[in-house]
């Protein structure tokens, strides 16, 4: 995994950048900040109404014929996410201002953050599933641009592309899944789909719908086996990682699963898929986290672990599991964003993120260290932090799940113990104690950069001590929406001595043990990883290579640069496909009612046939072209015989010009008498294709002329040509009036083609090189 072996330090700490922030960056910053604050305040003002069960609703038509409308609906679950997105958005925007300062990409970053925030807010408040999908894709695209922010770095580009391909590919599956869901439940409105309860689980297509939607959710939320893109996405600058890959974007998949749980959940398929994928993700990624030395990558893997845990708990439809999931979501957003930002500060100040090289940062960077320590303690789940409540709830939920309680308990304990070890590493090896080996004397960062992490860390502490702050207004409504029933939620720090508490003690004990033996543990994990045959990232790499070699192989076979080769392929494909269709659906032939062959028709046809033979066997190009002209002119005469005068004139003119043009070119070409005709074998093949094309075309033409004609359109033009368009020549009236838009398009094509031909001819190819 290249992303892990060559960790790329954030390179935005260039001390030479002393000049001020550019005005375009200031504008972008102001826009992003004002929008984020405005949204946050707007959502806060709705909190009371929404938590009492009255959602904020907005509807406007958009594509009415397709049933796509701008339907927004902010209920308890949406509110939880919206507050996180806009609230953390405010902090991240402020942080980024301090982080990027005079960096040349500062303005771009702020605009992208704003675009991403809007897409994310749209996603969590869409009520129409097509609208939801559009926002889903917008978050994919904006996150692609943000991960690849440092676009001069090939690693960043690779990671961005990987994130795009995996989440975008999942998005395609999701689209199909959502459309099928909409068709199966007869509504494209989420609120209606959810209101119809679990009816969809009885539907014949339920397994397919479930699989497709879960592929979308799993790719976005980095669940096994699609988990590997998320740690690679750490090529993004720290604030972006903090925002996208911890607090918001990766939660989109979690949001979708929470949202659809009332419709799709409650089945065995749902339970086992989510619990197995979530369990594997949680345990595997916490092991991966332990082996990292780059703190940012460590955090990235713990994010994957958190997402796995959330998925695990969404598997069950128990109330306590939903409470655990929602609380943990909040816990995680607080501590993870704080830690990412703190690591960004450390990186900026010391130039490294390797915890082996750092130590006792509290002396030089006190505020950042305090924020990081508080957040880490919440991550480890120590009282009195919200993390403790979250962890107790997880254990309570795990014990309550009836199907596989012990498996889930074991998974949760294992993952949490590793979280404890990582948190202890942060606290004792980096921030409070430990030996620093760096030469540079770190300095505390500016208030812009420590305010965010400190505020989030304090939020984790305050809500732990006073859980009532968030219970009624945020957690309870969200849980009610996940379960689609009104639910009472009570959170408290102290539950008495019970199962979860005992599990917590065990967790801390194991975690402490892992921490003290961290070197041994990470070496063991490294050995284990080396023995694995396939990793997600290598599988991705070989798949991508396979696609590329397939594409280049196909291109090399098809794009030979030989015109006769192209024509062979085109006509052979035409003959084979049409002939196969004709054999499958034979056309009934009836030759009794054909137009009689008059002498003039017979004469023209014989002429054309003779000319065709000349085309095929002549020895000079000029003769071939002229003979081909005779064939075309013969067609024109036939048009004339059957009364299509306009078409006949056009055909004749085009044919004449064609011969002139080709002759102009051919006269200048050197003569290659030997190569005009193909070798015997190729000649035979060409003859077969040519005769086949002729036969197929004849059969089709006969079939078409025998089918009864629908004269509605003809009658319309005959009746209206003179009265409405004042013209007796129907062909011309159609061209310039009834279907003038088509003609305009055709004329534009003629113009473009002519321009292209002229431009191509003007390109002079010199012997020295392609351009003059």
């Amino acid at each position: 995994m290249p992303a892990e072996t060559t960790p790329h330090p954030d390179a935005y700490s260039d001390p030479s950048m002393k000049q001020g922030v550019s005005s375009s960056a200031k504008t972008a910053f102001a826009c992003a900040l004002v929008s984020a604050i405005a949204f946050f305040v707007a959502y806060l003002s709705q909190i009371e109404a929404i938590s009492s069960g009255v959602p904020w609703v907005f509807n406007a038509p958009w594509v009415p014929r397709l049933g796509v409308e701008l339907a927004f609906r902010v209920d308890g679950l949406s509110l939880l996410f919206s507050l996180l997105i806009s609230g953390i958005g405010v902090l991240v925007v402020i942080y980024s201002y301090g982080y990027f300062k005079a960096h040349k990409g500062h303005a771009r970053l702020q605009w992208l953050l704003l675009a991403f925030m809007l897409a994310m807010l749209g996603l969590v408040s869409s009520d129409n599933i097509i609208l939801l999908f559009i926002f889903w894709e917008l978050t994919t695209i904006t996150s692609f641009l943000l991960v690849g922010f440092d676009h001069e770095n090939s690693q960043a580009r690779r990671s961005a592309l990987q994130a795009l391909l995996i989440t975008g590919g999942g998005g395609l599956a999701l689209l199909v899944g959502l459309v099928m869901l909409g068709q199966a439940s007869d509504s494209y409105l989420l609120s209606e789909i959810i209101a119809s309860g679990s009816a969809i689980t009885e539907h014949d297509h339920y397994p397919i719908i479930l699989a497709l939607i879960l592929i979308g959710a799993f790719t976005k939320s980095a669940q096994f086996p699609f988990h590997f893109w998320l740690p690679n996405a750490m090529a993004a600058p720290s604030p972006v990682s903090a925002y996208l890959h911890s607090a918001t974007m990766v939660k989109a998949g979690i949001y979708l699963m929470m949202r659809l749980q009332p419709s799709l959940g409650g089945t065995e398929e749902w339970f086992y898929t989510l619990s197995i994928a979530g369990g594997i993700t949680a345990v595997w990624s916490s092991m991966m986290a332990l082996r990292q030395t780059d703190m940012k990558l460590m955090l990235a893997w713990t994010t994957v672990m958190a997402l796995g845990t959330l998925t695990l708990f969404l598997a069950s439809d128990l109330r306590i599991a939903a409470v655990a999931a929602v609380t943990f979501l909040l816990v995680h957003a607080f501590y993870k964003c704080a830690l990412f930002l703190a690591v960004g500060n450390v990186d900026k100040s010391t130039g490294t993120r390797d915890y082996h090289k750092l130590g006792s940062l509290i002396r030089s960077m006190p505020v950042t260290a305090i924020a990081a320590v508080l957040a880490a303690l919440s991550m480890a789940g120590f009282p009195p932090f919200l993390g403790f409540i979250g962890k107790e709830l997880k254990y309570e939920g795990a014990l309550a799940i009836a199907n596989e309680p012990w498996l889930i308990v074991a998974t949760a304990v294992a993952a949490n113990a590793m979280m404890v070890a990582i948190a202890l590493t942060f606290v004792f090896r980096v921030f409070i104690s430990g030996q620093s080996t760096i030469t540079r004397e770190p300095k505390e960062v500016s208030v812009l950069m420590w305010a965010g992490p400190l505020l989030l860390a304090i939020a984790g502490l305050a809500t732990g001590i006073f859980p009532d702050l968030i219970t009624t207004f945020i957690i309870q409504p969200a849980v009610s929406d996940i379960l689609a029933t009104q639910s009472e939620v009570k959170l408290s720090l102290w539950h008495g001595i019970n199962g979860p508490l005992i599990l917590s003690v065990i967790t801390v004990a194991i975690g402490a043990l892992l921490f003290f033996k961290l070197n041994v543990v990470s070496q063991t994990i490294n050995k284990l990883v080396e023995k694995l045959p396939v990793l997600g990232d290598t599988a991705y790499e070989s798949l991508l290579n396979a696609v590329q070699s397939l594409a280049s192989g196909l291109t090399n076979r098809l794009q030979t640069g030989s015109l006769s080769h192209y024509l062979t392929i085109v006509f052979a494909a035409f003959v084979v496909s049409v002939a196969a269709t004709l054999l499958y659906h034979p056309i009934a032939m009836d030759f009794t009612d054909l137009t009689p062959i008059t002498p003039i028709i017979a004469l023209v046809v014989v002429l054309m046939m003779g000319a065709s033979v000349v085309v095929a066997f002549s020895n000079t190009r000029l003769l071939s072209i002229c003979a081909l002209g005779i064939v075309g002119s013969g067609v024109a005469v036939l048009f004339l015989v059957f009364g299509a005068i306009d078409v006949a004139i056009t055909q004749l003119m085009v044919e004449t010009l064609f011969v002139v043009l080709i002759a102009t070119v051919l006269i200048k070409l050197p003569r290659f008498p030997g190569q005009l005709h193909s070798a015997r074998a190729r000649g035979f093949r060409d003859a077969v294709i040519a005769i086949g094309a002729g036969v197929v075309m004849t059969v089709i033409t006969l079939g078409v002329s025998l089918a009864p004609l629908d004269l509605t359109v003809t009658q319309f033009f005959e009746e209206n040509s003179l009265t409405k368009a004042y013209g007796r020549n129907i062909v011309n009236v159609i061209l310039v009036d009834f279907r003038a838009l088509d003609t305009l398009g055709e004329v534009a094509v003629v113009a473009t083609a002519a321009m292209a031909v002229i431009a191509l001819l003007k390109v002079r190819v010199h012997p020295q090189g392609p351009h003059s």
Partner: protein
Amino acid sequence: MNSLIFSTISRLLVGLMLLFSVFLLWRGHNEPGGGFIGGLVAAAGIIVYGLAEGPLMMRKLLRVNPRTLVLIGLLIAVASGILPLLQDSAFLTGLWVFIGATETDKGLALGTPLIFDVGVYLVVVGGVSGMVIALEEEL
């Protein structure tokens, strides 16, 4: 092509064919003809002249760059479609004036479809002759 006969005839022909092409364009709405066919006939005339006299003379005959002709044609066609928009009709709706109309005869009918057809005519003339000029010049 250095042929005195061809060169003499071509000078006669080009005038006749250009005249005929305008005639075709004009009568197209009621009789066989129209902008497309007219344009092709005009281009054929210009090409005959060009084969006899060479691409430089073709350019002199056209007076404007064929690419400019194409562009002007496209603009005229689009403009004829925009005119009805000013009257709250749909794009490319035909608008007509009848000069000297009486109770029984609608007189001389002039409409935006004719303008549109002129645009088509110019695009075809410019495009086809432009391609031939480029071929003659570059090959």
